[in-house]
C-alpha cells in the first residue's frame, strides 16, 4: 500500500483504491447548504453541530479509479453510440481531444446512510435530514478532492484535466453508470448498482474525467448551468465555495503532495 498525506492508495482485486480519513464536513458548509443568506439562532447551530459531530464519525470515503488510455476511451464511446445516443453526442469531443480518461467511483460508505435510515425510522426526521445532507456534502467534497488529485496527476504530465462528466447530469444518461461500473469493477469498493442504475450506498457517484494536452470536455455546458437538477440542488453553494478557494473547503489538507513522501 502506498500512502500520501492523509491518503491511502492500494489495489483491491486489481482496482486502484483511494481512501481518506481526513474527509470531514464543516459547520460552515452545512450552514451554506441549508441557511445561505438567513440568520440562524443558537438552537439551530447547536443542533447542527451535534449532528455533524456524529455524522463525521461515520464517513468512510473510498474511491475506485481506473485510467483508460485513448484507445480504450474510444472503445467506450463507440459502445455508447448505439445504446445511449444522447450521451454519445456529448462524449464525442472526448475522442478528439482526450489522451485518456479516469473513470472514478467514490462513496462515503454505508454507515452514515444506515444511521440516516435508523433516525428516520425512529421519527427523528430533522436529524435524519441533516445527516443526509452531511452525506451529500461529503460525497461532493470527496469527488472534488479526487478531481484535484487527477488534475495534479495530469499537470505532472503537462496535461490538463477536463470537467467531470457524471451519469445522471447534463444530458448524460444514468445508464452509463452501469457500463462504467463494470469497467471499474466498482463492487470491489462496496458499491452495487440497482436495476434503475442507482448506486448503493446512495451517497456515491461516478464520473469520467478526461485528461490530455488540450482536453475539451465541457461541450455540454459548464457545471451547474445545464444540470436538470439545477433549481433544486443545494450543493450549488458548495461548488461555488470550492471554486472560490480550496482552502475554505479544507481541501488543501487533503491534496496529495507527492514530494512530502
Amino acid at each position, binding site marked *: 500500500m502506498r500512502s500520501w498525506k492523509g491518503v491511502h492508495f492500494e489495489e483491491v482485486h486489481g482496482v486502484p483504491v483511494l481512501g481518506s480519513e481526513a474527509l470531514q464536513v464543516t459547520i460552515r458548509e452545512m450552514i451554506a447548504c441549508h441557511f445561505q443568506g*438567513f440568520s440562524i439562532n443558537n438552537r439551530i447551530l447547536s443542533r447542527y453541530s451535534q449532528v455533524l459531530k456524529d455524522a463525521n464519525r461515520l464517513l468512510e470515503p473510498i474511491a475506485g479509479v481506473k485510467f483508460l488510455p485513448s484507445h480504450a476511451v474510444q472503445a467506450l464511446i463507440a459502445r455508447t453510440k448505439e445504446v445511449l445516443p444522447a450521451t454519445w453526442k456529448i462524449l464525442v469531443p472526448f475522442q478528439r481531444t482526450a489522451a485518456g480518461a479516469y473513470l472514478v467511483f467514490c462513496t462515503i460508505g454505508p454507515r452514515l446512510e444506515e444511521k440516516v435510515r435508523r433516525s*428516520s425510522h425512529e421519527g427523528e426526521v430533522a436529524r435524519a435530514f441533516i445527516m*443526509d445532507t452531511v452525506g451529500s456534502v461529503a460525497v461532493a467534497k470527496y469527488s472534488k478532492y479526487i478531481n484535484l488529485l487527477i488534475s495534479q496527476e495530469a499537470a505532472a504530465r503537462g496535461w490538463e484535466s477536463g470537467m467531470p462528466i457524471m451519469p445522471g447530469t447534463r444530458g448524460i444518461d444514468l445508464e452509463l453508470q452501469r457500463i462504467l461500473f463494470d469497467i471499474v469493477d466498482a463492487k470491489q469498493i462496496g458499491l452495487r448498482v*440497482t436495476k434503475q442504475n*442507482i448506486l448503493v450506498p446512495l451517497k456515491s457517484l461516478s464520473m469520467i474525467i478526461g485528461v490530455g494536452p488540450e482536453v475539451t470536455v465541457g461541450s455540454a455546458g459548464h457545471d451547474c448551468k445545464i444540470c436538470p437538477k439545477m433549481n433544486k440542488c443545494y450543493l450549488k453553494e458548495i461548488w461555488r465555495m470550492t471554486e472560490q478557494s480550496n482552502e475554505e473547503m479544507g481541501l488543501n489538507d487533503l491534496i496529495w503532495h507527492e514530494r512530502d513522501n
Partner: protein
Amino acid sequence: MNGEDDLYKLISDALVDLDEEQVLTLTQRGLEQGLDPLEILERGLSDGIRRIGDSYAAGNITLPHMVICADIMQRAVLILEPEIEKSQKKRRFKGKVIIGTVEGDIHDIGKKIVATLLKANGYEVIDLGRDVPNTKFVEQVRLENPQFLCLSALMTTTVVNQKAVIELLEMEFLRDRVCVIVGGAGVTRERAIQMGADGYGENASEGVSVMEEFLSG
C-alpha cells in the same frame, strides 16, 4: 388572557423558537393541569406550526428550519396521542394522504420530510415507504380512499413510475377519487403536467401548500 391561553401561547412561542425542551415540558404540564389534549394540539402546537409556515411563505426562514419545527411538534404529539385516545375524542384531520417513493426508487428522506410536514399541518398520513410497487399504491387508494396520493421520485429513471401509477389508477377507475401530487428531484412542473398529475410540489413545503389550495377549493 387566562392561564390556559397563556400556556397555549407559551407552547406556540417555544415551538416557533425551536425550543424542544420547553415545548415538551409545557405540553406535559398542560396535560397535568387537565387541559384537553386536542386543545393543546390545536391552540398551542398547530398555532406554532402555522406561524412557522407563514414565516416560510414570507421568505423569512428556510425549509430546514421548518423541518426542525415539524419534528419537534411530532415529539409533542407523541405525548398527547395516548391522552387523545383516552379522551375518546376524535382528532380532526384536514385530509387523508397516502405517500410513498415509487417503484425502483430507494430514496426516502425527501418523502419522509413531506410526510412530517403534512402530519404537523394536520393531515392523516399513511406512509408506504420507498420502492413501493405501482400496484400497491392503487390497492391502498382503493382501501383507504384518501383525498391525496403523493408520489415521490428522485431519479429521472424512476419518474416513469409516477406516470405508471396514474395510468393504473385510470385503468382501475380510481383516478377521479384521488388528487395525485408528484414531487422529488427527478420531476419538473412540466413533466408533472404531461403525466397527468393534479399537482406538483417543487419542495416539501410547496407540496403541503398545493394540498391546502385543493382543500380550500
